[in-house]
Protein backbone atom coordinates (compact mmCIF):
# COMPACT_ATOMS: atom_id res chain seq x y z
CA UNK A 1 0.00 0.00 0.00
CA UNK A 2 1.34 3.41 -0.94
CA UNK A 3 0.97 5.76 1.97
CA UNK A 4 0.21 9.33 1.05
CA UNK A 5 2.26 12.12 2.56
CA UNK A 6 -0.51 13.17 4.94
CA UNK A 7 -0.16 9.76 6.62
CA UNK A 8 3.63 10.11 6.75
CA UNK A 9 3.15 13.45 8.48
CA UNK A 10 0.61 12.03 10.90
CA UNK A 11 3.11 9.29 11.82
CA UNK A 12 5.79 11.90 12.49
CA UNK A 13 3.39 13.92 14.66
CA UNK A 14 2.48 10.86 16.69
CA UNK A 15 6.19 10.11 17.13
CA UNK A 16 6.70 13.59 18.52
CA UNK A 17 3.73 13.20 20.89
CA UNK A 18 5.10 9.91 22.17
CA UNK A 19 8.46 11.61 22.70
CA UNK A 20 6.73 13.86 25.21
CA UNK A 21 7.06 16.99 23.09
CA UNK A 22 5.46 20.21 24.31
CA UNK A 23 5.81 21.95 20.97
CA UNK A 24 5.97 20.53 17.46
CA UNK A 25 6.67 22.46 14.29
CA UNK A 26 5.58 20.90 11.02
CA UNK A 27 6.44 22.30 7.64
CA UNK A 28 5.38 21.28 4.17
CA UNK A 29 6.93 23.39 1.44
CA UNK A 30 7.49 23.56 -2.28
CA UNK A 31 10.97 24.87 -3.04
CA UNK A 32 11.36 24.90 -6.80
CA UNK A 33 11.17 21.27 -7.87
CA UNK A 34 11.49 19.98 -4.32
CA UNK A 35 8.88 18.98 -1.80
CA UNK A 36 10.15 19.54 1.74
CA UNK A 37 8.73 17.86 4.82
CA UNK A 38 10.12 18.94 8.16
CA UNK A 39 8.98 17.99 11.66
CA UNK A 40 10.78 19.34 14.70
CA UNK A 41 9.89 18.58 18.29
CA UNK A 42 11.22 19.37 21.75
CA UNK A 43 10.62 15.86 23.10
CA UNK A 44 13.03 13.50 24.87
CA UNK A 45 15.23 13.06 21.79
CA UNK A 46 17.41 10.05 21.05
CA UNK A 47 20.92 8.96 21.86
CA UNK A 48 23.31 7.98 19.07
CA UNK A 49 22.39 4.32 19.12
CA UNK A 50 18.67 5.03 18.93
CA UNK A 51 19.24 7.62 16.25
CA UNK A 52 21.30 5.22 14.17
CA UNK A 53 18.43 2.73 14.21
CA UNK A 54 15.60 5.25 14.12
CA UNK A 55 14.62 4.59 10.53
CA UNK A 56 15.29 0.83 10.71
CA UNK A 57 11.87 -0.80 10.22
CA UNK A 58 12.84 -3.67 12.52
CA UNK A 59 13.58 -1.41 15.46
CA UNK A 60 10.96 -2.16 18.11
CA UNK A 61 8.35 0.40 18.99
CA UNK A 62 7.93 -0.16 22.69
CA UNK A 63 5.71 2.34 24.51
CA UNK A 64 7.78 5.29 25.61
CA UNK A 65 10.16 5.05 22.69
CA UNK A 66 9.68 7.53 19.94
CA UNK A 67 10.23 5.33 16.91
CA UNK A 68 7.50 4.19 14.56
CA UNK A 69 7.34 2.70 11.10
CA UNK A 70 6.67 6.20 9.78
CA UNK A 71 10.34 7.11 9.70
CA UNK A 72 11.34 3.96 7.85
CA UNK A 73 8.66 4.50 5.20
CA UNK A 74 9.54 8.14 4.72
CA UNK A 75 13.23 7.39 4.43
CA UNK A 76 12.59 4.62 1.93
CA UNK A 77 10.32 6.88 -0.12
CA UNK A 78 12.86 9.71 -0.17
CA UNK A 79 15.76 7.43 -1.11
CA UNK A 80 13.89 5.55 -3.82
CA UNK A 81 12.97 8.81 -5.54
CA UNK A 82 16.50 10.17 -5.36
CA UNK A 83 15.62 12.69 -2.65
CA UNK A 84 17.14 13.26 0.78
CA UNK A 85 16.26 12.13 4.26
CA UNK A 86 17.85 13.46 7.40
CA UNK A 87 17.20 12.95 11.07
CA UNK A 88 18.95 14.86 13.84
CA UNK A 89 18.36 14.40 17.52
CA UNK A 90 19.78 15.34 20.89
CA UNK A 91 18.89 13.50 24.06
CA UNK A 92 16.73 15.74 26.19
CA UNK A 93 16.50 18.40 23.50
CA UNK A 94 14.33 17.04 20.72
CA UNK A 95 14.36 15.66 17.21
CA UNK A 96 14.28 17.10 13.73
CA UNK A 97 13.25 15.06 10.72
CA UNK A 98 13.60 16.42 7.23
CA UNK A 99 12.77 14.79 3.91
CA UNK A 100 13.16 16.23 0.43
CA UNK A 101 11.37 14.61 -2.48
CA UNK A 102 11.30 15.60 -6.15
CA UNK A 103 7.87 17.27 -6.48
CA UNK A 104 7.20 16.09 -10.04
CA UNK A 105 8.52 12.54 -9.75
CA UNK A 106 5.81 10.18 -11.05
CA UNK A 107 6.29 7.89 -8.02
CA UNK A 108 6.14 10.65 -5.44
CA UNK A 109 3.27 9.77 -3.07
CA UNK A 110 0.30 12.15 -3.36
CA UNK A 111 -0.23 14.77 -0.64
CA UNK A 112 -3.40 13.07 0.53
CA UNK A 113 -6.09 14.61 2.69
CA UNK A 114 -3.96 16.93 4.83
CA UNK A 115 -6.79 18.69 6.74
CA UNK A 116 -8.70 15.46 7.34
CA UNK A 117 -5.61 13.60 8.51
CA UNK A 118 -3.77 16.28 10.52
CA UNK A 119 -6.54 18.35 12.11
CA UNK A 120 -7.97 15.55 14.29
CA UNK A 121 -4.49 15.16 15.82
CA UNK A 122 -3.91 18.90 16.17
CA UNK A 123 -7.20 19.72 17.87
CA UNK A 124 -7.31 16.82 20.34
CA UNK A 125 -3.72 16.70 21.52
CA UNK A 126 -2.45 18.61 24.57
CA UNK A 127 0.68 19.59 22.64
CA UNK A 128 1.10 22.92 20.85
CA UNK A 129 1.65 22.83 17.09
CA UNK A 130 2.79 25.21 14.45
CA UNK A 131 1.86 23.97 11.01
CA UNK A 132 3.41 25.76 8.05
CA UNK A 133 2.64 25.51 4.33
CA UNK A 134 5.01 27.43 2.12
CA UNK A 135 6.03 27.98 -1.49
CA UNK A 136 8.35 30.50 -3.12
CA UNK A 137 5.75 33.27 -2.76
CA UNK A 138 3.50 32.61 0.20
CA UNK A 139 3.51 31.18 3.70
CA UNK A 140 0.46 29.98 5.60
CA UNK A 141 0.68 29.01 9.25
CA UNK A 142 -1.60 27.59 11.89
CA UNK A 143 -0.27 28.06 15.41
CA UNK A 144 -2.38 26.33 18.06
CA UNK A 145 -1.06 28.77 20.71
CA UNK A 146 -2.50 31.72 18.79
CA UNK A 147 -5.74 29.87 18.11
CA UNK A 148 -6.14 28.93 21.79
CA UNK A 149 -5.45 32.48 22.84
CA UNK A 150 -8.16 33.76 20.51
CA UNK A 151 -10.55 31.06 21.74
CA UNK A 152 -10.17 31.48 25.49
CA UNK A 153 -12.16 28.76 27.26
CA UNK A 154 -13.59 27.34 24.03
CA UNK A 155 -12.14 23.98 23.00
CA UNK A 156 -10.18 23.46 19.79
CA UNK A 157 -12.36 20.44 19.12
CA UNK A 158 -15.52 22.58 19.26
CA UNK A 159 -17.44 21.74 16.05
CA UNK A 160 -17.47 25.31 14.79
CA UNK A 161 -13.78 25.83 15.54
CA UNK A 162 -12.90 22.57 13.82
CA UNK A 163 -14.91 23.40 10.72
CA UNK A 164 -13.39 26.89 10.64
CA UNK A 165 -9.86 25.45 10.82
CA UNK A 166 -10.66 22.88 8.14
CA UNK A 167 -12.07 25.56 5.85
CA UNK A 168 -9.02 27.80 6.39
CA UNK A 169 -6.66 24.95 5.68
CA UNK A 170 -8.49 23.84 2.53
CA UNK A 171 -8.54 27.42 1.25
CA UNK A 172 -4.81 27.75 1.89
CA UNK A 173 -4.07 24.50 0.04
CA UNK A 174 -6.25 25.64 -2.88
CA UNK A 175 -4.40 28.97 -2.98
CA UNK A 176 -1.10 27.07 -3.24
CA UNK A 177 -2.61 24.90 -5.96
CA UNK A 178 -1.80 21.76 -3.94
CA UNK A 179 -4.28 18.98 -4.61
CA UNK A 180 -5.05 15.87 -2.60
CA UNK A 181 -4.09 13.56 -5.46
CA UNK A 182 -1.18 15.77 -6.52
Amino acid at each position, binding site marked *: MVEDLAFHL*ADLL*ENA*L*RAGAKFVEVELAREGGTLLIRVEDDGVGMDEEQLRRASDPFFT*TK*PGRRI*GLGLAFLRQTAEELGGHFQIQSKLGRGTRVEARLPWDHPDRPPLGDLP*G*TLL*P*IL*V*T*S*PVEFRLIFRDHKNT*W*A*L*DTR*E*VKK*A*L*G*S*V*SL*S*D*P*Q*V*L*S*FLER*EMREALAAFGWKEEG
Partner: protein
Amino acid sequence: MKLEELRKIRERAEAEMRLRTGQARVKIVVGMGTSGIAAGARQVLRAILDEVARRNLRDVIVTQTGEKGLAAKEPIVEVHEPGRVTIYGEVDEATARRIVAEHVVNGRVLEDHLVELREVPA
Protein backbone atom coordinates in the same frame (compact mmCIF):
# COMPACT_ATOMS: atom_id res chain seq x y z
CA MET B 1 -5.44 32.55 9.55
CA LYS B 2 -8.35 34.88 10.28
CA LEU B 3 -8.06 35.13 14.05
CA GLU B 4 -10.87 37.69 14.10
CA GLU B 5 -13.29 35.00 13.01
CA LEU B 6 -12.11 32.77 15.86
CA ARG B 7 -12.92 35.53 18.33
CA LYS B 8 -16.45 35.68 16.93
CA ILE B 9 -16.79 31.90 17.31
CA ARG B 10 -15.57 32.32 20.88
CA GLU B 11 -18.12 35.01 21.69
CA ARG B 12 -20.96 32.87 20.36
CA ALA B 13 -19.72 29.76 22.15
CA GLU B 14 -19.27 31.56 25.45
CA ALA B 15 -22.76 33.03 25.21
CA GLU B 16 -24.13 29.51 24.66
CA MET B 17 -22.10 28.21 27.58
CA ARG B 18 -23.59 30.86 29.83
CA LEU B 19 -27.06 29.74 28.80
CA ARG B 20 -26.19 26.17 29.77
CA THR B 21 -24.65 27.54 32.99
CA GLY B 22 -22.06 24.89 32.92
CA GLN B 23 -19.03 23.35 31.44
CA ALA B 24 -18.72 20.57 28.94
CA ARG B 25 -21.24 17.84 29.73
CA VAL B 26 -19.23 15.02 28.19
CA LYS B 27 -15.57 14.39 27.46
CA ILE B 28 -14.68 11.74 24.87
CA VAL B 29 -11.13 10.40 25.05
CA VAL B 30 -9.61 8.31 22.26
CA GLY B 31 -6.55 6.13 22.96
CA MET B 32 -3.91 7.11 20.41
CA GLY B 33 -0.95 4.99 21.47
CA THR B 34 1.00 2.91 18.95
CA SER B 35 -1.30 -0.09 19.20
CA GLY B 36 -4.39 2.13 19.10
CA ILE B 37 -3.26 3.79 15.89
CA ALA B 38 -2.31 0.44 14.37
CA ALA B 39 -5.83 -0.77 15.22
CA GLY B 40 -7.46 2.22 13.54
CA ALA B 41 -7.70 4.87 16.27
CA ARG B 42 -7.01 7.66 13.78
CA GLN B 43 -10.13 6.81 11.78
CA VAL B 44 -12.10 6.45 15.02
CA LEU B 45 -10.99 9.89 16.25
CA ARG B 46 -11.91 11.40 12.91
CA ALA B 47 -15.34 9.73 12.92
CA ILE B 48 -16.07 11.00 16.44
CA LEU B 49 -15.06 14.57 15.59
CA ASP B 50 -17.16 14.38 12.44
CA GLU B 51 -20.23 13.02 14.23
CA VAL B 52 -19.91 15.64 17.00
CA ALA B 53 -19.62 18.35 14.34
CA ARG B 54 -22.53 17.02 12.27
CA ARG B 55 -24.77 17.12 15.33
CA ASN B 56 -23.22 20.41 16.45
CA LEU B 57 -22.71 19.08 19.98
CA ARG B 58 -21.10 22.06 21.62
CA ASP B 59 -21.03 20.66 25.15
CA VAL B 60 -18.74 17.79 24.15
CA ILE B 61 -14.96 17.88 24.30
CA VAL B 62 -12.89 15.38 22.30
CA THR B 63 -9.31 14.62 23.36
CA GLN B 64 -6.71 11.90 22.95
CA THR B 65 -4.45 9.97 25.25
CA GLY B 66 -1.55 7.54 24.91
CA GLU B 67 -1.27 3.85 25.81
CA LYS B 68 -3.62 2.68 28.57
CA GLY B 69 -2.51 -0.93 28.98
CA LEU B 70 -5.58 -2.24 27.19
CA ALA B 71 -3.74 -2.99 23.95
CA ALA B 72 -5.78 -6.12 23.21
CA LYS B 73 -8.97 -4.05 23.20
CA GLU B 74 -7.75 -1.15 21.05
CA PRO B 75 -9.02 1.15 19.73
CA ILE B 76 -10.30 2.34 23.12
CA VAL B 77 -12.81 5.15 23.54
CA GLU B 78 -13.73 6.55 26.97
CA VAL B 79 -16.83 8.61 27.64
CA HIS B 80 -16.48 10.76 30.77
CA GLU B 81 -19.69 12.11 32.27
CA PRO B 82 -20.43 13.46 35.74
CA GLY B 83 -20.59 10.39 37.97
CA ARG B 84 -19.39 7.77 35.49
CA VAL B 85 -16.72 6.78 33.02
CA THR B 86 -17.64 4.33 30.28
CA ILE B 87 -14.84 2.51 28.49
CA TYR B 88 -15.45 0.99 25.07
CA GLY B 89 -13.09 -1.39 23.28
CA GLU B 90 -12.47 -2.63 19.74
CA VAL B 91 -14.17 0.48 18.42
CA ASP B 92 -14.35 0.88 14.66
CA GLU B 93 -15.64 3.85 12.71
CA ALA B 94 -19.28 2.71 12.78
CA THR B 95 -19.16 2.01 16.51
CA ALA B 96 -17.54 5.40 17.09
CA ARG B 97 -20.51 7.08 15.40
CA ARG B 98 -22.92 4.96 17.47
CA ILE B 99 -21.13 6.02 20.67
CA VAL B 100 -21.86 9.64 19.81
CA ALA B 101 -25.43 9.02 18.61
CA GLU B 102 -26.61 6.47 21.18
CA HIS B 103 -24.50 7.17 24.25
CA VAL B 104 -23.53 10.83 24.15
CA VAL B 105 -26.81 12.10 22.68
CA ASN B 106 -29.32 9.60 24.10
CA GLY B 107 -27.51 8.37 27.22
CA ARG B 108 -27.75 4.67 26.26
CA VAL B 109 -24.63 2.61 26.94
CA LEU B 110 -23.60 0.34 24.04
CA GLU B 111 -23.45 -3.07 25.73
CA ASP B 112 -21.79 -4.82 22.75
CA HIS B 113 -18.51 -2.88 22.99
CA LEU B 114 -18.48 -2.17 26.70
CA VAL B 115 -15.21 -2.94 28.49
CA GLU B 116 -15.91 -1.25 31.80
CA LEU B 117 -18.42 1.08 33.41
CA ARG B 118 -16.93 2.88 36.37
CA GLU B 119 -18.71 5.04 38.90
CA VAL B 120 -16.73 8.11 39.85
CA PRO B 121 -17.43 10.94 42.29
CA ALA B 122 -19.46 13.52 40.38
